[in-house]
């Protein structure tokens, strides 16, 4: 059993979240402002990562790493042999599954609406006039 002390927002979740504010056409990717980041080792599951790569917006992930000031260099593009490229899968695993935003916010790139992250939980609730 792995134990994590927090519910957290990992970058895999960030990669999939979009802004759903009324009228917004392209609310992706959300801009991360991170005040508190943690890193936590998790089990490496190459099957899962390789299955997910086609579903991941890679440029959004490299941008997210930049936004939280992470120094790890990710390749600019997904290599063609990603399914068998273990080094790449490990890098992707680290970025997607092991970097956690505990406190900060997510901002809709179109409307500028800010969604706060507290205790690792993004608050995506909208106001009445935003639905």
């Amino acid at each position, binding site marked *: 059993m792995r*134990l994590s002390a927090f*519910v957290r927002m990992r970058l895999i979740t960030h990669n999939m*979240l979009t802004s759903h504010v009324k009228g917004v056409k392209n609310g992706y990717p959300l801009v991360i402002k991170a005040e508190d980041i943690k890193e936590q080792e998790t089990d490496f599951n190459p099957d899962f990562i390789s299955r997910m790569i086609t579903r991941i*917006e890679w440029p959004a992930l490299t941008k997210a790493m930049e936004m939280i000031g992470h120094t790890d260099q990710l390749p600019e593009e997904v290599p063609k042999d990603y399914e068998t490229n273990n080094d790449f899968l490990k890098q992707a695993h680290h970025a997607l599954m092991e970097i956690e935003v505990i406190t900060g916010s997510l901002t809709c790139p179109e409307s500028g609406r800010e969604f706060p992250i507290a205790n690792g*939980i993004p608050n*995506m609730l*909208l106001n*009445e006039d935003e639905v």
Partner: protein
Amino acid sequence: NMSKNRPESRAPPDIFYDQKEAQKYTSNSRMIDIQTEMSERAIELLNLPEDTPCMLLDVGCGSGLSGECLTEQGHIWIGMDISSAMLDVAREREVEGDVVLSDAGQGVSFRPGTFDGVISISALQWLCNADKKYHNPVKRLYKFFSTLYAAMKHGSRAVFQQLYPESPQQLELITTQAIRSGFGGGVVVDFPNSTKAKKIFLCLFCGVASPTLPKALGTEEEAKKKRQIKYVKEREQRGSDKRNKSIKKSRDWIIEKKERRKRQGKEVSINTKYTGRKRKPRF
């Protein structure tokens, strides 16, 4: 009136699931057992590819009990819930999934084609209520189902469990909006003959033209046929019995009762020559 006891008749979910109510999900073992059993059945109905770690969404994940079942089976999940008190409990329990504070009636805010499957335990009925003045259940259900449809992979399923619809109209309200959003599928009823074990699932398919619904538990067609034949025979034999019922506490009565309980999915001991026998008087 049963419906008055149901949580969704008392207060909106973000208010009903306050700290006190949320704590029950960590301390009440009966509640935990029921939730776990329902989650496992819902996951089974998802019919995920074997030995493949999947990306799943848990709508109304609450304290993360259903999510833990997903983790146990090797899947990665994201949970969404409207109650921050419940999500705090999820944090205390150190669940493996990421959770998001969000109202399903405002739509699912994930990218298209993200999820291999969706489960939702005891949550959908909340969407049928108009908890706020500006809430419109039809609009909220449509918003939820249409955005959910978009966030799912084609060919994947969403299973909603333990919808105890307060009325047939409620179920119709739900299914109409699901179909309008593009989903196919329908309702699977486990143990339909039992009031206690009966469970209703809404099993929705994303991008499948004419889906075949999974088989429900406790409704084997064959058993049904056999039963019907047997009853005809028994009725003929009894003949004189006006109400076609066996005498209370008789062997026939006991066997019938056991049959009935078996159909309801309960554990029943086998019939032997001792079944229904009277004990000898002893001194």
